[in-house]
């Protein structure tokens, strides 16, 4: 898996703390060359020539503002250096402005086969408040056009838990969204991130967060309505129909390696020679990052070995955010053959099982569409520890209690 970060945006959204810069005219050529040089550098350094890449993800920032030719060359590089099968998932994030929508066909033609649109809301006043530079009409249009181009492989994001949002407001907005959705949607509760304009307003009291009870109501209704539309919540904020889950994101959660390319990108890779996993972090600022790429071939800022506890905790933490949970097999695979039961505080686990927060599926036999995804049927054969719907809603309370 490869993640490629495009760090530029046209406008600044009030809630966003991603590594992004408002620059209407970035140096496309230097960016392209640097991204390509990082990919090549990786292949060389870790001897990855010809490795199979199942997924490429262009994230941001706003990658739909990049030139299709840039991504084309990148994909070509990947195909040359690695092996890129024709069924690889190649996703791009995009903003639903009309200008960007016009370029979607181009992106599709250079090989991108999945599109993730940041709608955030279908309410124009809300869009303004969030600092978005598109209207709901443009957004709806973008979804329609995308479906025409990318078919089932279109998803979009909405944010709920906005100031003053009522359960009824959200019910209507979500239904409208699901009416036009393809088979995937991401529904995020608005998070107040440090350093954002929203955070400052929150501190000053200008922005008021809905009460915990209200947020719980909004979450409950989200589950209720998506279910009605036939969607399965396969991760806290991600919903799919027809097995159209995001392979790329699932890869993060299930412990796969991924290369992180581009300013501020994070990656995780196993170095077989060292029998260890590493986290990689690239330089944040595009200019510095490019400069370093030009000088040394890659813009790395940090490269650190993960402790075995880190690796295991990550598997537990992310596994339990998905409905499938942590398959025993997977845990063993990434943790030097340690058994999941040996790692967890089973006294606590059993208590949570008894109280309906967790389930231990020992011998999986029948397909239960509430939590299973077809692609994982094999991985779960040897049993999984998974959260119930009730458990998932409070999983941040549960995880620290089941780890020693």
């Amino acid at each position, binding site marked *: 898996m490869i993640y490629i970060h495009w760090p530029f945006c046209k406008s600044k959204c009030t809630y966003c703390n*991603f*590594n992004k810069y408002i620059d209407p005219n970035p140096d496309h050529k230097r960016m392209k060359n640097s991204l390509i040089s990082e990919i090549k550098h990786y292949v060389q350094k870790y001897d990855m020539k010809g490795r199979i890449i199942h997924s490429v993800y262009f994230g941001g920032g706003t990658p739909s503002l990049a030139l299709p030719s840039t991504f084309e060359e990148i994909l070509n590089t990947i195909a040359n250096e690695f092996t890129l099968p024709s069924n690889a998932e190649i996703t791009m994030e995009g903003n639903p402005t009309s200008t960007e929508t016009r370029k979607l066909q181009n992106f599709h033609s250079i090989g991108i086969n999945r599109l993730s649109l940041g709608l955030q809301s279908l309410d124009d006043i809300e869009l303004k408040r969030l600092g978005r530079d598109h209207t709901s009409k443009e957004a709806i249009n973008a979804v329609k056009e995308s479906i025409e181009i990318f078919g089932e492989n279109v998803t979009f994001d909405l944010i709920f838990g906005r100031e003053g949002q009522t359960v009824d407001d959200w019910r209507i907005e979500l239904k409208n969204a699901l009416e036009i959705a393809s088979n995937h949607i991401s529904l*995020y*509760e*608005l*998070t107040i991130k440090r350093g954002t304009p929203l955070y400052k307003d929150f501190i000053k009291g200008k922005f008021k967060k809905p009460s*915990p*009870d209200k*947020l*719980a109501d909004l*979450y*409950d209704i989200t589950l209720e309505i998506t279910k009605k539309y036939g969607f399965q919540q396969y991760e*806290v*904020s991600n919903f799919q129909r027809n097995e159209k889950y995001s392979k790329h994101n699932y890869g*993060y959660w299930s412990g796969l390696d991924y290369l*992180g390319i581009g300013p*501020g*990108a*994070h990656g995780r890779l196993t170095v077989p020679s060292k029998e260890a996993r590493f*986290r990689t*972090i690239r330089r944040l600022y595009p200019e510095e990052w490019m400069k370093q790429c030009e000088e040394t071939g890659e813009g790395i800022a940090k490269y650190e070995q993960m402790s075995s506890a*880190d690796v295991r*905790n*990550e598997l537990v*933490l*992310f596994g339990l*955010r998905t409905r499938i949970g942590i398959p025993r097999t997977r845990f063993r695979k990434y943790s030097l053959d340690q058994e999941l039961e040996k790692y967890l505080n089973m006294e606590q686990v059993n*208590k949570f099982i008894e*109280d309906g*927060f967790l389930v231990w599926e020992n011998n999986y036999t029948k397909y239960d569409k509430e939590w299973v995804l077809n692609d994982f049927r094999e991985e779960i054969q040897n049993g999984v520890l998974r959260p119930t719907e009730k458990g*998932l*809603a*409070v*999983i*941040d*309370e*549960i*995880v*620290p*209690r089941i*780890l*020693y």
Partner: protein
Amino acid sequence: MISRPILFNIRSHINNKSYIIHRNTLYISKRINRSLNINYGNLFRNAVRPLQKRGHSSSSNPNKNIDLSKFPAENIRNFSIIAHVDHGKSTLADRLLELTGTISSNHLHQQVLDKLTVERERGITVKAQTCSMFYEYKNKDYLLNLIDTPGHVDFNYEVSRSLAACQGTILLVDSSQGIQAQTVANFFLAFNEGLAIIPVINKIDLPTAEPDRVINQIESTFELDVSLYVKISAKSGIGIDKILPAVIEKIPPPSGDINKPLKAFLFDSWYDTYVGVVCLMAIVDGKLQKGDKIMSAYSEKKYEVIDIGIMHPEQVITGHAGQVGYVICSMKVATEAHIGDTFYHIKNPVEPLPGFEPAKSMVFAGVFPTDTNEFSRLDESITKLTLNDASVSVQKETSTALGQGWRIGFLGTLHMDVFRQRLEEEHDANIIVTRPTVPYKIIYRDGTSKLIRNPTEFPDPMEMQNKVSELQEPMVLATIILPEEYMGSVMDLCGSRRGEQLEYNYMDESRVMMKYSIPLAEIVTDFHDELKSKSSGYASFDYEDMGYQTSDIVKMNVLINKKPVDALAAILHRSQVAHVGREWAKKLSEVIPKQLYEVIIQTAVGGKVIARETISAMRKNVTAKCYGGDVTRKMKLLEKQKEGKKKMKMIGNIELPQKAFYDFLSTGSGTSKKK
């Protein structure tokens, strides 16, 4: 020499509390700390080598070596100064020390007396107001011993013992404030000891001074002969020269006999890092010397006298009847020095002096480390602190909710606050202190009785029914002095605290003295604060022990999801249960964080629920999105959360963070800490 920062901390901590506390805090700090302000390093050296005279002293005593044998009992006066806080006791003591040349009158020294050269030379603080002075009067040299008395009700017993070492006292009253509660309490202590009392009216330099009015108050309140009073200004020095002549004329000399067997009376002690336990003793009869073997009448323990001397910068040795001074003997810990104890030569037992009581804790509280791993470290800290303070009693205690800790007994709540503060600040302790409990008495049918210091010791219903004949609680006699206009509201306050008025008198046209019998339990909480606020700060208050009284007391349990939390139980009077029960349930529901499970908080007496609050189960806590940089942050947070969970106290399914206990117990549910 180190002067302790804690002094200032305590002052700011209890800043706008009653001034009683403010002053007494200083007293206790001094009492506990004074050993640290003293350098005993050269004490032994000085004992064998004459000291050089200080150049700048205006001493009226030119001798380098004072031969104490020149001071037979008739040339000795033992006296103290008793006063309400801030009426000028310290200032007057300083003036007397200057006048007699015991300390320099260099004005720069006035507020930093602790650091006097005499202390450095002699190694003993002269500032601790027990000290000896030499004074020539009508061609005769006198040895005048000024004996310090503690200034807080918490130390009433010690005050009475200090007074027992004197034959007379100066009753010092601020001429603009008039008689205050402590003046009264101290007066009666002195009166009961049969001391000669010299009324001294201070601060006559103030424009608001009303000396005549105060003299009338003294006359009417104490029925005291005021013909020989002295009017002074300790600050400006007016009238100071009349004090010591009055002391010599009016106070009788000690009546001891140097030829009788040794009888020494211990009235104060402290622990010093260098020399160990220092005792202050009055030699009632006989003679005491270095190397003597003595025995405690109370404990019958034997000691050898390592050093003795008087509290004076000049070189003096041996103690004769009538004299007062320090004795350093082979005592290991301060708890061996029982205030009020009598000592005699090993082979020569004598009748001990009356009035001795072993230290009696009046307030008990459970103390627990916030982090259970800190137990053994804090155990050492507590041991160290109690070395300095014999009046603290310590027992180990285990709570199911809070783990291992201690049940500590204090003389009073101020004493407790100071101890707590020292533990927190000097020993870096993170502690939870439970609601203080007074010692209740259980009287059994078979005539036996038992004191309980902990709600967990309260008899269960079975025992109550079958064995207990009655329950009793400690009472105090409270003296409250206040301007007439606040009588109504203060009487309401006392009534609401189950006080019973015993008498009230007008001390003059506008000041009233009221006496109440009040349960001790009612004043160990926030009574002081309330009294001050109900009287705009004008009421003064003091109290003394009044024994036990039958009382309808019950144990109130706090239950969390039906399980009692031992550390939160309380012993209350039945009439308070409804109110306190409701308040506690409410407050707990505010400090306990939401849980994965519903939390039901109940307060109950026996099987009867008084109040109930519920905290509904948490519905949602899950991070919406977690990518890239969030991951490392999330992992770090996870580590912190894991640590935090380990420190939780479990009550069934429910986790109580130590913080909840702390918040609950320190926001006014019983401790006298500020609100």
